């Protein structure tokens, strides 16, 4: 049975393993890394979702916002179907379109 206090115990081996991990040569990018970063920047000059909050980049939320703006601004009238002139609701007493007097 290994003795944890001895230099050859699991503690010592664990420490040695961590030391080996630390002593590994650091990973290096391939040469001309800066040129590749520049190329990437040139391909995408603006950050994703530039100028927009995260929620506005979801189409469903954007559509909902558009509808709300339309409703609030009153332009939604354009979305309502026009009523036929002979319908009941189109008759307004006293209006020029009311029935002619006999």
């Amino acid at each position, binding site marked *: 049975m290994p003795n944890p206090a001895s230099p050859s115990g699991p503690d010592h081996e664990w420490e040695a*393993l961590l030391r080996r991990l630390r002593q590994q040569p650091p990973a290096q990018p391939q040469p001309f890394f800066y040129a590749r970063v520049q190329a990437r*920047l*040139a391909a995408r*000059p603006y*950050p994703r979702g530039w100028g927009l909050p995260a929620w506005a980049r979801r189409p469903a939320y954007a559509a909902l916002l558009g509808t709300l703006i339309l409703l609030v601004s009153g332009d939604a009238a354009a979305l309502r179907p026009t009523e036929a002139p002979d319908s009941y609701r189109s008759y307004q007493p006293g209006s020029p379109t009311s029935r002619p007097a006999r």
Partner: protein
Amino acid sequence: MAPSLALPLVFEPLPPAAASSTGGADAELVAQLQQGSEAAFRTLVERYQQRVYSTAFSLLRAAEEAEDVAQEVFVEVYQTVATFRGETALSTWLYRLATSRALQHRRRATAKKRFAYLTSLLGLHNQVLHHPPDHAHPLALLEGEQQLRLLHSHIGRLPSQQQVAFTLRHEQELSYEEIAAVLDTTVAAVESLLFRARQTLRRHLHPSLRHA
């Protein structure tokens, strides 16, 4: 033509935990970057590319993916440096970007792999799933290398926060304070993360260590 630096960006202010470690040289570099200096950006990339790349590589264990993440980090720095207020060290910000982007990359890759596996089970695609080739023969590897490979494999299975803390401590050799700043947490929390990570790794590696 290089894109302008003056871009509106979303960047969360970092905690002042690591502000004390901000070097004068980095502060000067950030100031030049915020003025749109192309030379300053080149200096930044050359100064930090190794640290950013090796951090990403430690978390991903794939050169191509680490390269992709490292490039993405510098692009993000270029595009968001206008909002960097210097409340933390530049290196802390870079480590934070590198670790979060690497973990994000890995989550996406795992999801993609699971989806591919699922579609292969359902027979939606007749493609063969490719796993990274492992050319290493156990007998061909030295004992120490075998143990390191085993250690890397178990580090990769740790929960994300533990993995980042362990990697920053034992591979990047950051102090507990620096790790706390990167993870936006306390030193006590970092100690706890490292303790749990070491315990888990030792438990998994115990038979291998005993028979080494």
